[in-house]
């Protein structure tokens, strides 16, 4: 139980995917200009990540490891993730139109989100078991959402401030992200090791 709690806190706060592993930077820069859209994106990513963690775990340990074809890892993971996103999109569209309205446009963007593949790779690297992997996926998604929403809040305020011309657009967002990363370093004492 304690281990699962540590994985959770670690993935949300201490080793946040965006701010300490730089995974998922593209949507982080692209979708963080409005609070509402960042919430939608965050929820879609959390959902897909929890699911992807479970499915890639099953594929890796039940198929790749059993038949000793681990070298196909990358090819299999990327195919699994791409088809998973596609299936989730079709499923939601059919059975829950309101949810599709909320998450729909963000789903195709998730395939190219490196955080999902990163999640699968870290899961294998750290040898998590099934439950740990799912918790790890869910927590990583939550951590992504947390940073995305925080960033969107800051950017909405920044619209009203006077930014030097050369820093307009991406540079100021990157520097703000740097300051956020500094703030998140404060969590690093939370769990040791």
């Amino acid at each position: 139980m304690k281990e699962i709690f540590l994985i959770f806190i670690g993935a949300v706060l201490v080793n946040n995917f965006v701010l300490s592993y730089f995974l998922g930077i593209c949507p982080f820069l692209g979708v963080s200009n409005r609070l509402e859209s960042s919430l939608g994106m965050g929820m879609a990513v959390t959902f897909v990540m929890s699911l992807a963690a479970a499915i890639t775990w099953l594929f890796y340990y039940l198929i790749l490891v059993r038949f000793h074809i681990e070298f196909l890892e990358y090819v299999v993971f990327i195919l699994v993730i791409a088809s998973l996103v596609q299936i989730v999109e079709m499923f939601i569209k059919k059975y829950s139109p309101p949810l599709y309205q909320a998450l729909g446009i963000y789903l195709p963007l998730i395939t190219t989100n490196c955080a999902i593949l990163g999640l699968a790779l870290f899961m294998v690297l750290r040898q998590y078991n099934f439950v740990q992997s799912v918790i790890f996926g869910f927590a990583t998604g939550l951590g992504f959402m947390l940073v995305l929403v925080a960033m969107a809040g800051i950017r909405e305020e920044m619209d009203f401030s006077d930014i030097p011309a050369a820093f307009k657009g991406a540079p100021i967002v990157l520097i703000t992200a740097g300051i956020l990363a500094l703030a998140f370093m404060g969590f690093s004492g939370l769990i040791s090791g």
Partner: protein
Amino acid sequence: MSKKTIFLAGLWREHPNLRQLLGMCPTLAITTSVRNGFAMGTAVLFVLVFSSFMVALIKRLIPHQVRIAVYTIIIATFVTIADITLKAFFPQISRALGPYVPLIVVNCIILGRAEAFASRNSVGNSVLDALGMSLGFMWGLMAIGAVREILGRGTIFGFRLGIIHFRPWIIMLLPAGAFFALGFVVAFMNFLDRQRRFKT
């Protein structure tokens, strides 16, 4: 379009990571030194050139609806080759780059060039475009690596610079420093562009 314009586009005008902001994960993650930037740049060069070559070669055989999936498999194959080669012959570099080598699969530059260029142009031009883009990517990585290595360690390519009274800023080697360095480098590119526009 002449061969020269195709090649030079990636090096400055359409610079992949500093102007189009593609391939951000490696740009931020592994640029703690110039050498790492060079190693990552070489891995991307290999994958990009070969996958652009393949895509340009078989572009007529790929059905339109499944093209993205096919490109992804081609890219993942070359990334696997690069990863296994690094692990076997350069274990030290492989350790330094860690999971960011397999993550080249989802590097938007490679899929972007396959979709935007290699699927519409001849094999020769596609390879040229891939070379220009990956060399541009490489110097981008090395530039940010240089900023972080000089400020964070006081060295360049591992050689001590020996600036008196300079204490390395550890922060530049930490994640926060990556964001600061990239932010300032991109801002500097914007600044140069603006200067040029005022002159003309």
